């Protein structure tokens, strides 16, 4: 299988160690991971590659998660938008996810089992199309 055929996940997270951990776990599980350190870098990535899923931190410098979602949706027609899973340390992650109309959420600190289950819901389905 070439890397192009692997389900592709853009991981937008500002903490370098957290980003490296997410990349390591997801790559091990069989995903192609494109890491970005903030929303701005994330936007550049999703313009170049159409990912199957976007894993998005909320509190980030330069461009935060909320700003990223708005910019991404402005750029892409709904049919071309990849599902977004929010990863947040907020007190009520579900509420943040509802407010942004994103497809999923994970509360920090994330359990790896939950991470893989949540990612699997979206990335595999679209990748099998």
């Amino acid at each position, binding site marked *: 299988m070439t890397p192009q055929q692997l389900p592709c996940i853009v991981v937008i997270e500002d903490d370098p*160690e*957290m980003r490296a*951990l*997410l990349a390591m*776990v997801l790559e*091990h599980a069989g995903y192609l991971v494109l890491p970005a350190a903030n929303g701005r870098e994330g936007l550049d990535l999703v313009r170049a590659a159409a990912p199957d899923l976007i894993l998005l931190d909320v509190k980030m410098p330069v461009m935060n998660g909320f700003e990223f979602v708005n910019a991404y949706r402005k750029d892409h027609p709904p049919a071309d938008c990849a599902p977004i899973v929010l990863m947040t340390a907020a*007190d009520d992650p579900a509420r943040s996810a509802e407010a942004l109309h994103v497809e999923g959420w994970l509360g920090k*600190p*994330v359990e790896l089992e939950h991470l893989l289950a949540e990612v699997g819901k979206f990335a595999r389905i679209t990748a099998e199309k």
Partner: protein
Amino acid sequence: MCDASGRVTHVNDASVTLTGVARERARGMLISDYAREVDLKSVDGTGLDVEGFPLLRALRGETVRNATYTSVRTHKTVHIRTNASPLHDASGDLVGAVAVDRDVTELVEFDKLKDQFIRVAAHELKTPVAIMKGYAQHLLRVATGMPPAVASSLTAIERGSRRIDRIVRDLLDLSQIQIGSIELRRERMDLTELAESLTRRAALTTNRHDVMLADSDSVVVVGDRARLEQVIGNLLDNAIRYSPKGGEINVRVALTSTGEVEVSVRDRGVGIAKEKQGRMFECFYRPHTDTPYDHGGMGVGLFISRYLIEKHGGSMTFESQEGEGSTFSFRLPVPQ
């Protein structure tokens, strides 16, 4: 001060400064009018009913101790702590009431700063904990052929980070309770199924206890699944922790004759001494401090649990006998 007819007879200089109501204006005023003028608010910013004004309460015979209010009438927000008391003459007849106000603005501001510090510090801990826990979990999942000592070290790191995670969550819950900002989701959920899965999960964490779900009714409630999971999980943790010799732990979900549902967790553990039972739901109270059963912890689990249950419109109680064990139960309303 006021007389028995409820008119202000005296205000001192300090009171004028605190309330912003001039002495000449205040004198002779009906307390209810004076209360409207002073316009006290609760510390959370909601308006105070005139009937709740300390001097009026005192005039009705009540002694008010250390009630804290906020006044925004003067150029800046002032926090006032009031003690008020009825005044009687030698024959015991009510002749008026007196209130003593103290400016506690600085104290209240410090308290807010402390809460804010706890909040920020706890939030900042989330990412490093996530990193520790995540790497440990990942290595435990994927690395094969690890020497047992390495595997057990990783397990210890994982467990340690879980404990920090628990503390961080408790601190955040406490600060949210403090400012009244915990909001529950209200969705229909199967309480019995939740109790069953948590019982099963708890059983996996111990080999000394028989953790079992007793014959239970199938009950659907409207509530916050994650929060109810937190409460039942907390009761199960306590039951296991304070039953050092093992034994049965029974979870039961039952409809009551009053149309509520009761979830109970019963253990055969060390129990709670009678003289300590009255304080069990106090924040930071740890009944087993300096006993052989002192397993640490902040003493906030039951405080948070009871708050969450009451927020659901329910109630939490317990029965316990030292040396015999305890049963902690909560009741929730059942939708028709």
